[in-house]
Each structure stands twice: as C-alpha cells, then as structure tokens.
C-alpha cells in the first residue's frame, strides 16, 4: 500500500476515535475489508499492543508494522501521536469553550457510537474464522469479563487464550 495512503488511513482512524482501542472499527473497515490486512493480523496487533508497554492505542504501531514494515510502523506512530495534540493549542485558546455542554455532548455521542462500533467489531473478530466453537465463545466471554473487571494484566488474559488455543485449537 502507498505509504501516504497508509498514513491517511491511520491518521483518520486516530483523529475520529476517542481513546486507544476505539480506532479499531475504522481501521478494520479501511484495512481488512479491502484486503490490505487480515483479521489474523488485527488480532495479533491487538494482542501485542496489550502485552507491550505504553498506551493501548499503540496496537496500531504493531498493525502498521504488519502491513507496511518499519515505515508502516513509523507512519502509524506519527498518526497516533498527532491528533491528540490538537487539545494543547485548543486548551490554550478556548478552554472554556471546550468545557461547554455542546462539546461535552458531542464527545459523549461519539463515545457511544464508538462503543456500539466496538461491540460490532468484537463480534466480527470472534466470527472472523467462521462459526466459533463453544470453547471459543467461552473464551470471548472470559476475555470480556476479565478485561472489564481489570483485575488481571491483559498479558495474562491473552496467555489464557493462547494456552486454551494450544490445548483445543489443533
């Protein structure tokens, strides 16, 4: 994929999301649907992003590497770093406006839309390889509950999935 086009895809996903993993629906739509990336690569990127250090949103660096090598990773890093920084000049110029209720409502509306899209994306990932078996559905439920509760490190949750996959997935 052309590096500039790849950068635009990552920048759009970052600029139109709220929070780390919320860029996933847009990235999946722009990369998996056209065949530029596979769902397996998306799963790898999410898993590595949760195991690695730094914000959750750094999974896009992993995805950038898988799609475009070192250049793809660098472009993804830049695309992930720039949009959040618009808050710095806006805060300096219009802090009161930022805290006004229409802005808060807009952010809340985008967050709720993103939540719905994330559920749809999660369902899509679980079903990506065809109809999931019962143990895979159980793993999805376990992953949901453990992540929501936040009592276990994500790396341990992923390790549980890998261990069950090794035992039952062959």
């Amino acid at each position: 994929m052309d590096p500039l086009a790849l950068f635009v895809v990552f920048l759009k996903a970052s600029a139109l999301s709220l929070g780390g993993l919320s860029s996933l629906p847009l990235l999946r739509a722009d990369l998996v649907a056209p065949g530029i990336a596979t769902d397996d690569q998306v799963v790898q990127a999410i898993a590595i992003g949760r195991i690695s250090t730094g914000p959750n949103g750094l999974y896009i660096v992993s995805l950038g590497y898988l799609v475009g090598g070192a250049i793809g990773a660098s472009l993804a890093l830049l695309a992930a770093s720039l949009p959040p920084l618009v808050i710095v000049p806006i805060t300096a110029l219009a802090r009161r406006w930022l805290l006004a209720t229409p802005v808060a409502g807009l952010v809340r509306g985008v967050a709720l839309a993103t939540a719905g899209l994330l559920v749809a994306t999660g369902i899509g990932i679980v079903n990506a390889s065809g109809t999931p078996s019962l143990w895979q559905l159980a793993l999805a439920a376990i992953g949901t509950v453990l992540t929501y509760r936040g009592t276990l490190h994500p790396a341990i949750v992923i390790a549980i999935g890998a261990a069950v996959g090794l035992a039952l997935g062959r």
Partner: protein
Amino acid sequence: MSAREFGEAWALSQLSPGIHLVALAGLIGRRAAGWRGVVAAVGGMMIPAAAITVALTAAYGVIAASPVARAALAGVAPVTGGMTIATAALLVRASARHGRAHLVIDVAVSLGFVVAATLLGVPTLAAIGAGALIGAVALGRERPTSRESSVG
C-alpha cells in the same frame, strides 16, 4: 503542577481525539516546558513503547506461521474480541456515575449503534458522524467525567 491542575489536564485530555494519554502527556509537557516540553513528553512516552511493540511484532512474525502459533491464535482471537467488547463497556461505564437514567440512555444509544453496524450495515464513518450529531444536539447536558474510563 498541582493536583488540581493535573485533574483538569486529565479531564481535558478525555475530550481529545485519539489516544488520551498522548493528550495528557502533551498538556503536562506544555505546562512544564512549552512546546519543547510537548515533544519531550510525548516522544518520551511513545517512542520507547513503540520500539518495544515493533520488536514484539517482529519476534512474533518469526513463528507466526508455525502450527503452534496458529493454534494459540485460535484461542487469542476470541479473547481479543472479548477485550474489544469490554472496551465498549468501559466507554459506557462512566455514565453510571451520573445516575440510572443517564446509564439507560447511554446503553440504549450504544445498542442502537450495534444494530446499525451489525444488522443495517451503516458505514463506520457515518455512525461516528451520527453519534457526534446526536450527542451535540441531545446529550450535552453534563460534562463527561472519564477518570474511570481505562480505554487508553
């Protein structure tokens, strides 16, 4: 910076697009040392973590095609799907602090977008635009407090 300044920077960072921790680092960096502080704070947080992420991705790439890795991925995939769904729940969870009615509205609106995306095939970008419009017009009664949200 004082605890109050940090709290305000946190609240403002939750309004930013993209990774909120980048926005928080940028706001703290600007407060500490101007635009050079922004570059230092964001670079210091992102570059080492990105390098580790790339190294892990490259290391996994060596074994990605092996039968063992494929079997493990069959278990990791549903877990990451579950993690994605949990992230959605975390986005909505902050509403619980504003009372039951607030939570019911947020859950109902979110479920509406699940239906729109899964059953009606509404494009992702259109859904986000609709969410922004609905939020600005009808949901702007309270300022969001996302301290509880752990979505990065």
